């Protein structure tokens, strides 16, 4: 199909790029401790970009029998499309490899059922009031990218998603305790998840006294992306060329505290690793912040061209969508603190295990206000109960300049790799 498309577009004197992906997923779901669904899903799609008479057009299809319509739609779009400030790249090579684990490819629904049952049995034993949902999903994705500049490359990648969520309803109180992860290789952590859920559920049984004021707040790595999203928006090259990133013109300036954050598509076995990005640009490692000093935005071909910089290899796309700027794996350099020691060091403070975000008017500027779904008050280094009706608020850029300690372990959180971070003080209010 790709050959046919490139043939037609070539004859019409257009540069062209075809992105084709197919994803197979095996998934098993338990609800309230009962096995509910086993699924075998296929999703495929192809996206075509053409540059015709200097203008960019895009079309996509999940109906691979409609090649002519796909091409026609792309040319129609190019009549109105923006001027292309870039050309499609030729063949590229990088050392980066997509994660691939044959054990994920071979993972069977029966194995997922057995693994899920084990979690449910264990939690029934140690946490009898909880009803537990479990989901296990193993996917294999094949990607092929070809363009009229001679690139034609492909890779296969695997990913594995596992989540365990226990809910305890008592009167009008609903407690959710969840653990899970997304990995590039088969990484079954049922025992770890069960242990953490049981421990948190046990601590949550005692309500904490109300607290208000400026307090040290320990964000567990799992919850840190809620804060990092502002910074991720800030480094997005699209926001830079549109003029609304607060980081514009601040390269070389110390913007954060002692934080080093890197976009790293080379990280072994990580879900965001790949040899080239979704426009065919060779993967590269990009330092975003080095000891708090802002170093670089992330660019795709289009935003890079507008900014007068090369692409940093950060184009991402869905199966049926046009590419846009996206991080690969975001890796934060860890600190030296022992996680338990960070808690024990707190005379009064809180630990966050779950938040509800409500949207923010000033997300780009870094403002946040989060409702604590699951968090604990710490007094004299001990857990003093579960926080109820508590909000934490502040500014992300301010928060990251006053870090008290960072955990020494980097934890995988999807395509983020982050330590626990103890902020010296955030505004906390309980109702």
């Amino acid at each position, binding site marked *: 199909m790709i050959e046919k498309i490139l043939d037609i577009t070539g004859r019409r004197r257009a540069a062209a790029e075809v992105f084709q992906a197919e994803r197979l997923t095996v998934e098993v779901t338990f609800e309230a401790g009962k096995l509910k*669904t086993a699924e075998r899903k296929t999703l495929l799609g192809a996206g075509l970009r053409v540059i015709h008479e200097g203008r960019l057009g895009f079309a996509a299809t999940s109906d691979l029998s*409609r090649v002519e319509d796909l091409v026609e739609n792309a040319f*129609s779009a190019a009549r109105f499309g923006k001027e292309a400030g870039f050309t499609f790249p030729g063949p590229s090579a990088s050392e980066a490899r997509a994660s691939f684990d044959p054990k994920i490819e071979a993972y069977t629904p029966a194995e997922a*059922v057995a693994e899920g049952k084990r979690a449910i049995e264990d939690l029934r034993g140690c946490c009898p009031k909880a009803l537990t949902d479990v989901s296990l999903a193993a996917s294999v994705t094949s990607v092929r990218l070809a363009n009229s500049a001679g690139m034609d490359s492909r890779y296969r990648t695997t990913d594995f998603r596992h989540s365990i969520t226990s809910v305890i309803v008592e009167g009008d109180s609903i407690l959710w305790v969840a653990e899970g992860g997304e990995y590039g290789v088969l990484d079954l952590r049922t025992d770890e998840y069960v242990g953490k859920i049981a421990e948190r559920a046990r601590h949550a049984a005692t309500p904490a006294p109300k607290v208000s004021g400026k307090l040290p707040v320990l964000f567990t790595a799992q919850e840190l992306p809620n804060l990092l999203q502002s910074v991720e928006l800030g480094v997005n090259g699209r926001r830079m060329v549109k003029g609304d990133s607060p980081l514009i013109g601040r390269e070389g300036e110390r913007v954060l505290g002692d934080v080093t954050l890197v976009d790293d598509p080379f990280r072994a076995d990580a879900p965001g690793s790949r040899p080239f990005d979704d426009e065919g640009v060779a993967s590269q490692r990009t330092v975003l912040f080095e000891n708090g000093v802002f170093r670089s935005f992330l660019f795709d071909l289009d935003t890079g061209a507008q900014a007068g910089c090369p692409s940093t290899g950060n184009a991402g796309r869905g199966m049926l969508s046009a590419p846009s700027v996206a991080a690969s794996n975001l890796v934060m350099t860890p600190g030296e603190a022992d996680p338990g020691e960070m808690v024990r060091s707190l005379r009064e403070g809180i630990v966050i295990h779950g938040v509800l975000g*409500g949207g923010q008017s000033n997300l780009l500027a870094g403002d946040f*206000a989060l409702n604590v779904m699951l968090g604990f008050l710490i007094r004299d280094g001990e857990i003093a109960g579960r926080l109820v*009706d508590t909000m934490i608020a502040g500014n992300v850029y301010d928060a990251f300049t006053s870090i008290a300690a960072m955990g020494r372990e980097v934890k995988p959180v999807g395509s983020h790799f982050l330590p626990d971070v103890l902020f010296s003080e955030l505004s906390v209010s309980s109702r």
Partner: protein
Amino acid sequence: MEQIMKKAIAGLDADYAEIRIERAESTSLAYMGPVLENIGTTLILGGCVRACIRGGWGFASFNRIEDAPASARAACEMARLAGENSTELAPVEPVVATVRSVAEIDPATVSLEEKRTLLKRYNDRMVAEKDIVTTNAVYRDLKKTLWLHTSEGSMIEQEKVYAGVHLMAVARDGANVQRGMKSFGDQRGFGTVMDRDAEVERILKITRDLIRAPKVEGGVYPVILDPQLAGVFVHEALGHLSEADFVYENPQAREMMRLGRRFGPDFLNIVDDGSLAGENGYTPYDDEGVPGRKNYLVRNGELTGRLHSRETAGKMGETPTGNARAISAAYRPIVRMTNTIIEPGETSFDAMLDHVRNGIYACGFLGGNTDLERFTFSSAYAYRIENGRITTPLRDVILSGNVFDTLNQVAMVGNDLTLFGGLGGCGKGDQSPLPVSDGSPHICIQNVLVG
């Protein structure tokens, strides 16, 4: 298509099976600032088979129509693996029906050039405003045909047409970046996106107000919610809690959500109504072939109903409500809302304002979330109310609270019901966005925690 579907699931050894196929075409355009960043058309073809054996569901999806029979076998194999109890689906009458779109102007009959010209007009107006640093103007339409065939004999073909725009202006003053925005979208056709110039002026006014607005001072206030925000509030606060898939396997949750329980004052009436033709959440038949209908969730302040799939209704001994919905034929149907509404009361907006000495008028919707017990959501813009009058603009008005308390704190329900669809929708599990409408009159809530 009917033959393909019948053949695919004929003779399957399952307690129940269904096949769904979807063919769709979607066009979208997006301006950011003066530049048309995206323009394109997407063709979609896909389907799935779902089978139930001894209470376990098997599901298999496909894109190539010729894969339908193999998917049917895979779904059965999966269902056998998952089935450990008994299949209890609430009975429904098989339906044979063809439903046409209610859209007056089918966007498929409108040229790409005309769509671009319209969007450009709105966007140009925003770009021309002097304090606006950038904009985001998105147009999207989707025309789809959905086929559903069940092993019980239902055969339904539904045509649906969606069209909408999302318009946003961004002002920046140093690190302070503020957005004014509105979104329009439903199943009424291309007319929904036409003649919105007055709304563009509203967006610019809101943006100008926001960039000079102070942050709200946190605290507990009486709050008047505009119809859009009140609609989102009822969706988040009661709608999700009314989805029976949360309660049907959980005895404590069932007790918490027992019918007859008081949820608000006598004058509070809340419905979910999938039968409202043209609304974003209009669902003539859900993805199990159950007709959409008006379901009272709260009547005179008491819980009177909930939202069901055939499975949740069967297990709870209640009637299916037409709320089993999937975002596309690549996903299985789960319990979802359609159009969720607070029914109008008698208070005029002016009379409502008159009751508020020192409070907040919170408007529009930026984002929100619920864990079913608590909710938190942000208004897009807001104003202070002083002695019954709307005065200065405020930003960062984020409302949060306990679902059960807050519904009981509803003090007044207005007489000016308005529904809002839009380009986005509702997210649940891995399925987002699902088109829904939320609506309400203005409502006044006594004590709300504002951050």
